[in-house]
């Protein structure tokens, strides 16, 4: 599904990504962890062409990201959810979820609204159809943002710290949506500080540091028996307490 080969990225002399390679199978849920500034966001943003890259190649579902014509194709197939939600504040919730369907996919109004209602129903916000983003809580806004991305029927979903800007009691409702998406077989790349999510939902965890993927493996091995010294330090620093706790995730129960 995703094939990244030897990709680098620099801002001036500052090398942000160094020779990153990665293959992700369809349906795989990959959690990306790592200290701030390690290049996680840059890497994610590269996968839908929000950032260019200097060397190497990226293919998503067979489309080559370095070909400008394919870039539009890729963007339709890759949904992205941002830390700051980035809903369109001048549009209602309903219009937020239909606008790109109408403009990009050229869906009819009826078809776009039908899909939007189904997706808003799924994130349990169907009653907010006519509200504006500023009238919603952060958790609700992020769920709308997820519905908005899903409306393009992407094959891959990227989440960049989707819960980091939320009050702790609102984190659970967003993680629940992400979890159900994962269980339905969506291919997901999730940059997160929620170790519970990484441990219990992800099939695979990547640890990035200094622009490299330093460790890559199943969450059990990576988080419980880390070998890399920097990973050990990182996990200690963020307090990786939930070692053998099977019922997961800070705030999994919605308040």
């Amino acid at each position, binding site marked *: 599904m995703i094939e990244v080969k030897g990709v680098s990225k620099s801002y001036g002399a500052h090398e942000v990504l160094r020779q990153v390679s990665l293959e992700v199978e369809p349906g795989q849920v990959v959690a990306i962890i790592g200290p701030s500034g390690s290049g996680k966001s840059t890497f994610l943003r590269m996968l839908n062409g929000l950032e260019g890259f200097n060397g190497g190649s990226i293919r998503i579902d067979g489309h080559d990201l370095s070909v400008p014509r394919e870039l539009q194709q890729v963007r339709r197939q890759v949904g*992205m959810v941002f830390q700051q939600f*980035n809903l369109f*504040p001048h549009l209602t919730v309903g219009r937020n979820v239909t606008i*790109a369907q109408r403009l990009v996919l050229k869906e009819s109004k009826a078809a776009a609204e039908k899909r939007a209602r189904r997706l808003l129903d799924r994130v349990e916000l169907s009653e907010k159809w006519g509200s504006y983003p500023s009238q919603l809580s952060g958790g609700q806004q992020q769920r709308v943002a997820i519905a908005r991305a899903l409306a393009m029927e992407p094959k891959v979903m990227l989440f960049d710290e989707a819960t980091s800007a939320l009050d702790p009691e609102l984190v659970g409702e967003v993680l629940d949506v992400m979890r159900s998406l994962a269980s339905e077989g969506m291919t997901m790349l999730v940059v997160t500080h929620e170790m519970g999510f990484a441990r219990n939902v992800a099939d695979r965890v990547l640890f990035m540091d200094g622009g490299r993927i330093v460790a890559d493996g199943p969450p059990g091995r990576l988080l419980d028996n880390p070998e890399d010294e920097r990973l050990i330090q990182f996990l200690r620093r963020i307090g990786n307490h939930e070692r053998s706790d099977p019922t997961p995730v800070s705030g999994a129960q919605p308040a």
Partner: protein
Amino acid sequence: MNFALVWEARWLIFDSFLVTLYLSACAIVGGTVVGMIVALLRQAGIRSLNLALRAYVELFRGTPLLMQLFFIYFGLPLVSIPVDRFWAAFIALTCFTSAYVAEVFRSGIEAIPRGQSEAATALGMGFFHRFFWIIAPQAMRVSLPPLIGVYVSVIKDTSLATVVGYNELTRRAMELMLRFGHPLEFFITVALLYFAICYPISKLSEALERKLTPTAR
């Protein structure tokens, strides 16, 4: 004071009042359209184009409107573009207005968080879709109060079209004064007419600003 004279000339004055409204409306529409196009093109991020557009904006903001009127009225015929009085006034006012409108839009656009454009891009929206559906509507909201300020100036500045002999309100007042004397009466009347248009619009702008500010993020 003898306002009986003014009353007698009321239809002449009213007629030129309509002419001023017409010229103002043309200049506002023209200036807004051109200003929006300039602001849009500046978003494309093409270096040489940006340079040219900045030169355009600075030229028309940095020289007196009076000079611009003269240059267009006397200059364009020299390069075989015939302009009558209306067109000279219209072109000069449009260029002048568009320079200010472009700047208002530019700062409005810059006030929109980058994440808006990125979210739209991530949804597969292209440059024009992003600009017209996501960025421009939000920028418009921010820009509306200063934009109305520009419009009020334009209405007052149409009085300068007098110098190319265009028969708007100010010129009519001067003609009447030359014919009948009593300059104060005529000019007080004309000033009141300008005020009658501009004051409500200024108030509207203030009200809009109050209404828009608390909801702005």
